[in-house]
């Protein structure tokens, strides 16, 4: 999956090339008006402008920075809460019985559906956005952690106990590292969920951020900014995915080998 043969990489490049050519073709020929779809050149030029001069009060980097800060903070909160809760759910059935219904109840609800309630409670500031993203990330991360803990080979735990491990040593030196591949997979999924929730959250009441930038541009019919914003959002998501895959290879490369 990670190391595709050269032929596969060529296919990917070919697809991108064809799409780009198509995009260029329909816009340069005048088939589609720039108001609906600006050409690749116009969008590229707009990105340079966005970086230099900005749009609706902030440069592209400031918008992206605001968005990344929100997700980063939410990620941090989710890690320090969801991973311990997930560990406890996996370790103790009683704890699982207490938390699982709660998580399963709110998990399928789209975050935008409970956003209004959070706005009523916490206003329209940063706190609301970070809480919303934290909640979106919490469920998949806690569930992945719990299932990772439950999948630990019981012989591995017995081996540690027969070597003299205390309960805490079993948890931190055997169960946690065994579950780490599942935790990182959960993190990867959670980050995707968090990023899409973020952009949605910024459509409501924000003065900075990529979602806000795209929303404002759409209202002003500045289509090239809309397209540029979407591309930047996609590229950041891709970069985060690749970063987490690299972390997985680097730290839990041992999993999947047996």
């Amino acid at each position: 999956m990670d190391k595709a043969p050269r032929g596969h990489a060529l296919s990917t490049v070919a697809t991108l090339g064809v799409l780009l050519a198509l995009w260029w073709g329909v816009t340069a020929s005048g088939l589609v008006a720039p108001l609906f779809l600006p050409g690749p050149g116009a969008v590229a030029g707009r990105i340079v402008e966005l970086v230099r001069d900005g749009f609706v009060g902030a440069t592209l980097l400031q918008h992206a920075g605001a968005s990344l800060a929100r997700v980063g903070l939410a990620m941090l909160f989710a890690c320090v809460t969801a991973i311990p809760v997930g560990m406890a759910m996996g370790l103790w059935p009683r704890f699982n019985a207490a938390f699982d219904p709660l998580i399963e109840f709110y998990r399928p609800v789209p975050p935008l559906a409970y956003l209004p309630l959070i706005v009523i409670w916490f206003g329209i500031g940063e706190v609301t956005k970070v809480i919303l993203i934290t909640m979106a990330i919490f469920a998949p991360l806690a569930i992945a952690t719990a299932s990772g803990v439950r999948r630990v080979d019981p012989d591995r735990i017995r081996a540690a106990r027969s070597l003299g491990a205390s309960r805490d040593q079993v948890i931190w030196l055997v169960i946690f590292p065994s579950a780490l591949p599942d935790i990182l997979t959960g993190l990867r999924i959670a980050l995707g969920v968090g990023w899409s929730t973020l952009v949605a959250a910024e459509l409501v009441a924000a003065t900075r951020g990529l979602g806000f930038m795209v929303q404002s541009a759409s209202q002003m019919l500045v289509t090239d900014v809309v397209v540029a914003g979407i591309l930047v959002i996609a590229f950041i998501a891709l970069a985060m995915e690749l970063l987490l895959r690299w972390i997985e290879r680097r730290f839990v490369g041992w999993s999947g080998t047996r």
Partner: protein
Amino acid sequence: MTVLSAVGAGVTYRSRNGAVEALAGVSLDVGEGEIVVALGASGCGKSTLLGLYAGFVRATSGQVMVDGVPIAGPGPDRAVVFQDDALMPWLSAEENVAFGLRLRGVPRPERLARARNLLRDVGLEGFAGHAIAEMSGGMRQRVGLARALAVQPRFLLMDEPLGALDELTRERMQVLLLQLWQGSGKGIFLITHSIEEALFLATELVLFSPRPGRIARRFRPDFSRRFLAGEPIRAIKGDPQFLAMREELALAILAGEEEGPIHG
């Protein structure tokens, strides 16, 4: 003389279909410097007995003791070697061997030095830094054995440790095990499906019969001592006495499977 003993030990599991008697009234001692081998078909309670000795399973009747003191749980005086190595794949070979020492707070340089010595003893010199995933089944079992030896246990409990290995590797491991055991004074309890392996290693061989698991017959082979006294392994395994006992055991196992418990 220290001894690991089961006295009239029985284990009954509660399942959805009522109570299942896994082990009934088993009395078996594993003494210092002995290799007690349990042989028998699957589901005849051998692993349950090992679980009792290790402290993973609690007896529902009878007693399991070390030197007359009831066993309360697992402990490093009774290290376990598993069929499916049960190593920590995120640790290197030497870190795996040093794991038990790490639990006791032995400083890293010291415990790794001791781990490397043990890896040399089991024939894995030069593999200290290797990842577990890079190692073959036989090498992993050696690491598992070295890990158990690292905590200097008085007893080694081995649950089909060589079951997943090819025949030649298996024989090499049998020889290694005897060499490590010789003069160590350790008591070994080993489970196997292989009649030949049981005969070659055991100082006491117990044959289990299933439903409920109990000891059907006991033997006292001396082939391991003969091997350590210098007799070649091929000569021993081809010895008419060895072959005759092998046949006898095979027949006894077959009879047990067909007719239920054997009384011998």
